[in-house]
C-alpha cells in the first residue's frame, strides 16, 4: 500500500451526495455508498454519517466531462472516477457517463469503485498489489468482494486498528466477568525489557520476539496469555531471531545469522531457510534490525553502525551508495536491537531497555516531554 501523506485528524466523518447518478435510484445509491464507506470503518474506528445538506467532510458528485476541477471525465471506459486526498478536501467524483450498476456483472460496479475512491478520500494512494482494492485498475464485479490485507494494513497505518471488533456484522460479545484483562504485566520481561526483534504481523498486530518466546502487544502493554513459544506459533522457525518485518505483500520475513525464512501468516511460505545473500543480495548476515518504511515501501536493514536500503523492484536492489552510517538518522544510536514502523506512522528504534521515536518529517528523533530515549518497559510493555 502507499500513503499519500495526509489524513483526517478526526474519526467521525460526514458525507453528502451532492449530485446523484442519472440512471440509479437515490435510495439504492445511498445504500451502496454507505456500504462502500463501511469497507473502511469495519477495520478502523472511523465512522461515516450521511448528511443531506450543510457542510460535510466528503462531498460526492456524479458528473460528466469537465466538471469544474480541471480534470474532465472521458466518457464510458477509461477513467471511471477520481477523488481527492484529505489535504485537498476528500471529495469524490464519479463519471456519470459510466453505466453504474449494483450487484450485477454488467456495467461498472458502483460499490467497488466507490470503496476505492473513498480510500483516496481517507489518504491512501494506489497500491501496486494487484489484489488490493487500492490497485488502480477496475477488474470487474466481484460478488465475494473482501478488502485485501494490503488495504487493511494501509488504512490501519493511517487510523489505527478498530478497538471494538465487529467485522462481519454484529458487535463483539461483552467479556465474561472472569475474562483475563487484555493486557498483563510480565514480571520477567519487565525486569529485562530488552528484546531481539519487533514487527507488525499482516493483520496489524505487533509482536516482540525474545529468545524462544514471543508476546503480542496491545495499546496498554503485552497481551495476557503470553509469552508463548515462537516454534509453536511459527512452525519451523528457530528462536533468537535477529530481525523481522512484514512486507506489503503480507508476507513476514525473519532473519537469523546468514539465513532467512518467509511466512504467510504463521505458515512457512515454501522451502526455507534460504541464504540472505540469495534472497537479499547486498544485505549482510547477522543483522541487528529491519523495517519497512511505508513512506516509500523500501526495506531498511541495520547492523552495527551502518544501514542498507533495499528496494526489491530495482536491480540491483541495494544502490552502490550503501551502506550508509546510522548517524544519518539523527539521534539514533549504533548497534540497535530492533526497529519498527508502528501503525501510527512513526518509526521506533529499540536498544537495551530504551527506545527512540523518529520523526520522518524532521528526519531526527522527536523532541518531546519526556525526552527520548524513553523506557521501553513503561511505554511499550505496560510495566509499572
Amino acid at each position, binding site marked *: 500500500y502507499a500513503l*499519500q501523506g495526509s489524513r483526517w485528524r478526526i474519526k467521525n466523518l460526514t458525507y453528502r451526495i451532492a449530485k446523484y447518478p442519472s440512471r440509479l435510484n437515490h435510495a439504492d445509491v445511498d445504500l451502496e455508498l454507505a456500504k462502500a464507506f463501511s469497507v473502511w470503518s469495519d477495520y478502523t474506528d472511523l465512522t461515516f454519517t450521511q448528511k443531506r445538506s450543510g457542510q460535510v467532510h466528503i462531498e460526492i458528485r456524479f458528473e460528466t466531462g469537465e466538471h*469544474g*476541477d*480541471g*480534470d474532465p*471525465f*472521458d*466518457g*464510458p*471506459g*477509461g*477513467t*471511471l*472516477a*477520481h*477523488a*481527492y486526498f484529505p489535504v*485537498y*478536501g476528500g*471529495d469524490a467524483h464519479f463519471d456519470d457517463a459510466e453505466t453504474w450498476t449494483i450487484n450485477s456483472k454488467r456495467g*461498472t460496479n458502483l460499490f467497488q*469503485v466507490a470503496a*476505492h*475512491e473513498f480510500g*483516496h478520500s481517507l489518504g491512501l*494512494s*494506489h497500491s*501496486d498489489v*494487484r489484489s488490493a482494492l487500492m490497485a*488502480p*485498475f*477496475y*477488474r470487474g464485479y466481484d460478488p465475494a468482494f473482501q478488502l485485501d490485507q494490503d488495504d487493511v494494513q494501509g488504512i490501519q497505518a493511517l487510523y489505527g486498528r478498530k478497538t471494538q471488533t465487529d467485522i462481519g456484522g454484529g458487535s463483539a460479545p461483552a467479556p465474561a466477568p472472569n475474562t483475563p484483562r487484555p493486557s498483563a504485566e510480565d514480571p520477567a520481561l519487565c525486569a529485562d525489557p530488552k528484546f531481539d526483534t519487533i514487527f507488525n504481523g499482516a493483520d496489524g498486530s505487533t509482536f516482540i520476539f525474545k529468545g524462544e518466546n514471543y508476546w503480542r502487544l496491545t495499546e496498554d502493554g503485552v497481551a495476557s496469555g503470553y509469552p508463548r513459544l515462537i516454534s509453536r506459533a511459527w512452525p519451523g522457525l528457530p528462536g533468537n531471531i535477529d530481525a523481522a518485518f512484514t512486507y506489503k505483500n503480507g508476507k513476514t520475513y525473519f532473519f537469523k545469522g546468514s539465513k532467512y525464512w518467509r511466512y504467510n501468516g504463521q505458515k512457512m511460505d515454501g522451502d526455507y531457510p534460504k541464504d540472505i545473500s540469495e534472497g537479499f543480495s547486498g544485505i549482510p548476515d547477522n543483522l541487528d534490525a529491519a523495517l519497512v518504511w511505508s513512506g516509500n515501501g523500501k526495506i531498511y536493514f541495520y547492523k552495527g553502525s551502518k544501514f542498507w536500503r533495499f528496494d526489491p*523492484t530495482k536491480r540491483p536492489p541495494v544502490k552502490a551508495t550503501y551502506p550508509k552510517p546510522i548517524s544519518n538518522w539523527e539521534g539514533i544510536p549504533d548497534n540497535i536491537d530492533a526497529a519498527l514502523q508502528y501503525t501510527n506512522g512513526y518509526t521506533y528504534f529499540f536498544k537495551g531497555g530504551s527506545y527512540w521515536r523518529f520523526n520522518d518529517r524532521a528526519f531526527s528523533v522527536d523532541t518531546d516531554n519526556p525526552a527520548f530515549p524513553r523506557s521501553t518497559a513503561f511505554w511499550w510493555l505496560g510495566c509499572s
Partner: protein
Amino acid sequence: APAFEGGLSQATMYLDKFGYLSPKIRNPTSGHIIDESLFRKAVAEFQSFAGLNTTGELDEETKKVMAMPRCGVRDKVGFGESRAKR
C-alpha cells in the same frame, strides 16, 4: 470504442496523466517527449507498478493494461504537482 488505442502519443498522454512522466522530459513548447530513454524508463515504471514484465517496451500486454478502465488518480505523486481542490 476503446478509450485506449495504443498509439505512442496516447501512451505518452497516459503516462503523463498518471504521473510517470516528469515535466523535465517534456519539451515545454511542443509537450513532446525529448528523450526516448526517459520514455522507456516511464514505461518500465508503469510496467513495474502494474505487475508486468519491466521491459520498457510499449508491448501488447502493456497496452492492454493501459486500456483497462481505472481510477483517475495518479499512481505516482511527487513531480511537484499539487492539484487544488477546486
